[in-house]
């Protein structure tokens, strides 16, 4: 197998003028590529995703994270933080119920939604996700049902059922909170494909942060005891610090791979800075840190932090979806992103494809 440079002597080609000169913006990451495109036309097609999918990323993530928080609270100190457990399980059910309508409405042939369960394809996060949602839906419904019976009758059996079915619900909830990151990154879209690990990490943290914010609001409304509030705040602070680190890492990766272009548009730039990072992470983390350090928690502080988190993380989903579509429309981003890396050797791939299911 010969190296492409032997056969395709781009390097020997004399530099031609024309749009080379105008397109030669930043040849970052490549010695040879000078921004050539085919009339500036997109080299890949964007997804049709928009508000519905951004909405699903938000509610699905919230549902998954809430189930994880509830299960851990129930296991670690049974009976102590009942508000967290109860709120987590009901919020999870609410997020779950909102998910399929959003997903089905997004299909271009919605009447055939059930074909999603026709096969299992491990190479497709869309297929994996359909099954995750199915399993998560079953256990989340069972858990919420048992929780409801316990709340109404005080039945110990119902409590036990909720605890045990809460475990598979939490396990599938971990996937619910993060697989949408895999769904985005397993495409050819430069902005998503450049961060295969950082994006699901950010999504997991953001999902959990939104669950905690919703739980905090419920706890505030239910006038939970101060100890419970203190624990929610503390965990929110830890998750918020993780989010700040993830935001920094992801932004660095986007710039290094030369795919951060879509975030330079005025609208997306403002939404990214003030919404996704500002409201979603900086503001709530600052409030939580202040309340933890001073040891004084105020109702306004908790409600403010929770509201900012929910708004910021919804904006985060919107920014990721729309900036990704914009990324796909920028041919120089994709053609630069797909330059050979490290030694410029193009190896031939192994043979074989999975046959049809």
């Amino acid at each position, binding site marked *: 197998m010969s190296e492409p440079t032997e*056969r395709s002597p781009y390097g020997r*080609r004399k530099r031609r*003028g*024309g749009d*080379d000169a105008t397109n030669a913006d930043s040849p970052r990451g490549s010695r040879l*590529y000078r921004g*050539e495109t*085919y*009339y500036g036309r997109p*080299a*890949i097609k*964007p*997804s049709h*995703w928009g508000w519905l999918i951004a909405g699903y990323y938000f509610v699905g993530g919230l549902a998954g*994270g809430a189930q994880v928080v509830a299960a*851990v*609270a129930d*296991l670690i100190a049974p009976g*102590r933080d009942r508000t967290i457990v109860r709120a987590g399980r009901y919020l999870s059910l609410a997020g779950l119920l909102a998910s399929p309508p959003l997903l089905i409405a997004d*299909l*271009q*042939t919605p009447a055939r939604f059930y*074909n*999603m369960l*026709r096969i299992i*394809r491990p190479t*497709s*996060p*869309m*297929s*994996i996700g*359909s099954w995750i949602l199915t399993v998560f839906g079953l256990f989340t419904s069972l858990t919420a049902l048992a929780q409801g019976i316990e709340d109404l009758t005080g039945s110990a059996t119902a409590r036990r059922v909720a605890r045990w079915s809460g475990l598979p619900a939490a396990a599938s909830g*971990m996937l619910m909170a*993060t*697989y949408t990151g*895999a*769904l985005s990154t*397993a*495409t*050819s879209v430069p902005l998503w494909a450049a961060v*295969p*690990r950082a994006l*699901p*990490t950010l*999504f*997991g*943290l953001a999902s*959990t942060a939104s669950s905690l914010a919703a739980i905090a609001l419920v706890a505030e409304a239910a006038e939970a005891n101060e100890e419970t509030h203190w*624990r929610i705040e503390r965990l929110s602070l*830890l*998750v918020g610090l*993780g989010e700040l680190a993830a935001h920094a890492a992801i932004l660095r990766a986007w710039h290094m791979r030369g795919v951060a272009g879509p975030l330079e548009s005025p609208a997306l730039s403002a939404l990214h800075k003030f919404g996704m990072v500002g409201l979603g992470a900086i503001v709530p983390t600052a409030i939580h840190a202040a309340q933890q350090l001073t*040891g004084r928690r105020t109702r306004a502080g908790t409600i403010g932090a929770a509201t900012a988190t929910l708004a910021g993380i919804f904006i985060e989903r919107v920014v990721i979806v729309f900036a990704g579509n914009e990324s796909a429309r920028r041919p120089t981003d994709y*053609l630069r992103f797909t330059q*050979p890396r490290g030694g410029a050797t193009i190896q*031939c*791939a192994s043979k074989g*494809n*999975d046959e*049809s299911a």
Partner: protein
Amino acid sequence: MVERYPTAIPPRALDYTGAIMPQLMPDEAELTAGLRIVPGRTYGFFTDTSLCIGCKACEVACKEWNALPAANLGLTGESYDNTAALSATTWRHVAFVEQISAGGARVTAMQPYQSNWLMMSDVCKHCERAGCLEACPTGSLFRTEFGTVVVQQDICNGCGYCVPACPFGVITTSEVDGKAHKCTLCYDRMKGGLEPACAKACPTDSIQFGELGELQGRAERRLATLHERGVANASLYGAPGTPGTTGGIGPLHAFFLLLDRPERYGLPVAPTLPSRRVRPAILAGLATMAGIALAAAATFMGEKK
């Protein structure tokens, strides 16, 4: 190899001298492409752009055979290309690259073959490992007995995930019927022993249909001939080990001989297979959630001082 100017009429052609054919000619591809189409073997296209004259007969033949509607009726101002791109209703697209304006300077030398006006008939690559197929959650996209990638219209539910997955921007969903569409390499014609419509219509044999291995050998020989004749800028795209086959995608079943760097035709040099990112992404997500669960456990154990 197909004889371009046969010295004798192929004997089988003499069986069909009447004005009206009584029935479909069995194994017609034997006459038009020089091979019999057998299920279980891998077929593809070798598109040799050094022979393309930009007539767009392939676009027309494809639209005719597949009953695809016209898309863009305007002018783009982009050389002779008013088709603009592959789409749900355009499965062959002839690209025109004008190199003649050297930054305003007067051109004093012309390259041989397509003399600075490059034409290339683009099509679905029918990848060895296809991003679209691996992304499809319904099994609508499948690999046929001819090694090609086809959408089953009665199963597709229009989730649209194949669209951003394709590394070459080929497959697209239609707003008319809400399903994904792309080149089928004339699955129906191949089943009937016919050569795909675009290849049959191509007047210069720029589009060559055949068994993949045979085509790859033919492409190697053509490239060597061109290099011998001083066409230093000729290169293969999508043949084993060449650009376009990177990152787990493997040899493209529809591959090309290009006369400029791939980006000029809008083709990526080193694309990757999207499904390669599934495992790292899922594992990173699970690791994050495991970390959060541990942090939650530690927090819920604690008491306020």
